[in-house]
């Protein structure tokens, strides 16, 4: 099932990051859903299928890359973007492509990437 408008999931346990990203991405016209944990986002995919998932990696309980793997295993074919504030490399799951975004990032650049990904998803009829 798909939402009426392509949806971007933003997952970060840090409230300031969630709120600021939601604010910015909405000004760009994106349909954004924010979640404080991987589990909440995973549960939400029962009713909404996102076209983009932008998640922090280091989170309690379930990490960002674990979430992406779970979504992938669940058959969710979204664009995956993994954020990290650490300098070290994140062991990215090999089964799918995930773009690594280091914090702090250029918010304008991120917005453009997401807009492009959403547009790409739209064309085949997301």
């Amino acid at each position, binding site marked *: 099932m798909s939402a009426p408008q392509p949806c971007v999931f933003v997952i970060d*346990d*840090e409230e*300031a*990051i969630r*709120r*600021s*990203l939601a*604010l*910015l991405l909405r*000004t*760009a016209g994106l349909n954004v859903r924010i979640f404080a944990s991987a589990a909440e986002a995973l549960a939400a995919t029962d009713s909404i299928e996102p076209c983009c998932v932008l998640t922090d990696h*280091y*989170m*309690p*309980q*379930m*990490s960002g890359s674990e979430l992406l793997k779970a979504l992938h295993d669940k058959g969710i074919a979204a664009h995956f973007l993994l*954020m990290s*504030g*650490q*300098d*070290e490399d994140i062991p990215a799951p090999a089964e799918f492509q995930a773009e690594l975004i*280091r*914090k*702090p*990032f*250029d*918010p*304008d650049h991120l*917005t453009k990437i997401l807009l492009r990904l959403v547009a790409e998803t739209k064309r085949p009829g997301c």
Partner: protein
Amino acid sequence: MTRQTNIPTVPSAPDIALLLVERGKIVLANQAAATLLGAASASVLHGRAVGDFLSPQRSAALASLLLPNETTTLEDTTHIVSSFHRLDGTKVDCLAGVEALTWQDASVVMLTLRVVDETHDERMTSQESESQLAAFVASAMDAIISIDAAFRIVLFNPAAEQMFGYHSADVMARPLDFLLPERFRAAHEVHIKQFGATGETTRRMGIKTALKGLRANGQEFPLEASISKSQIAGQHRYTVVIRDVSARQQREEELRLAQDQITHMARLSTMGEIASGISHEINQPLTAIATYAQALERFMTGAAEFERSEMIDIARQITQQSLRAGEIIRRLKAMIRNQVPKFELLRIGEVLTDVSALAEMDARLHQVQLKFRIEKPDVQVLGNAIQLQQVLINLIRNAIDAVADLPASRRTIELRQSCESDRTHVAVIDHGPGVSAAQAQDLFRAFFTTKSHGTGLGLPISRTIMNSHRGELTQSTTPGGGATFVMSLPSAEAAV
């Protein structure tokens, strides 16, 4: 009648208390005598009046033999049971052997003491007592050198030969000063003359000062010496007992260097770990600030519409996140500042709250759950907050590593604070693979580590810190498996 005593080399000295008394003063004593009389070392006895140690009630006979009296003559070894005072005032009954000898051209009395027991019939023959004095000098661990009033060597024992690298026969009658580095010679002579000129013969004359010696091979070495003075026919005679302390000083120096190195490495590794944790923490507010600023920019360029209240909120968020970043930097600076640890009264609850704040990040990064169980948060301890935090953070970090391979549900670390009589304990409990018996032996040894990137310094430093807090750091096995580390330290008065 007196006998001239040569100093034959005797392989071992019987452990009998031996004092050499000249005109009522102890000029030489061995360790057994020091032990018997309650002195820390033989040098403490040197120069003391032997009368100080004689009990007036039960030693009159002995006193008359020992105290200066030109008319006293001893025909043979005399044995008298006498009572002695130890330095701490307690009494000890001894069988005292008294014998007149000529030692280094001086008339002396040799006193051998054995604590009296039921069978005190073992009386030494004079032959035995002579060889005991000889053995004492010959087998002494310390160099013993005697010089006459002209500073010429009259006795040079085997330990002195070993220490300075000369044969006794080659140094006899030579002035002493070749045993000192040249720059000290003039001052040394003055010192000895001044020492000789003091009238302080009734006080202890053994002095201990840091000096340098010169070996035959030209090598200088640090030494400790005690000197005692005696007088023979108006002429001064000095006996110096010398200990080579170079090995000890070298050990101390090595230890100090190792300590410095450990501290330095610990600081570096702590800084590295703090830096990586901090970089993540600081990147969070920076990300939020950049994102909010970008949203504002979109408003300014007409790409976005905001309500006035939203704009105010965005500006506030930017301010708040900037302040937060600044606070993190301040915390980093406080942590790495090279500060002399200041001890103060700390509430254990506050220490643990700070630890919780510092460790939370690390735990979150590794998806480990930290549980704090604080029984008495108001109990106070005397200590340095930063150091105690360092110990606990280190233990938590080790525990995080220990549980890293467990399923997420079991990645739990418990910090449990409790009190037992006058001590406060903080246990860091994990359910990881635990510590094997073999590892446990080396756990607190510097540079021992089971981690691929470990320094092996965390636990040794932690234990050092705990020792400086009059506390302990111990390891045990968690019931059901895993490692438990307990820091314990004395509780101060509980805060009311």
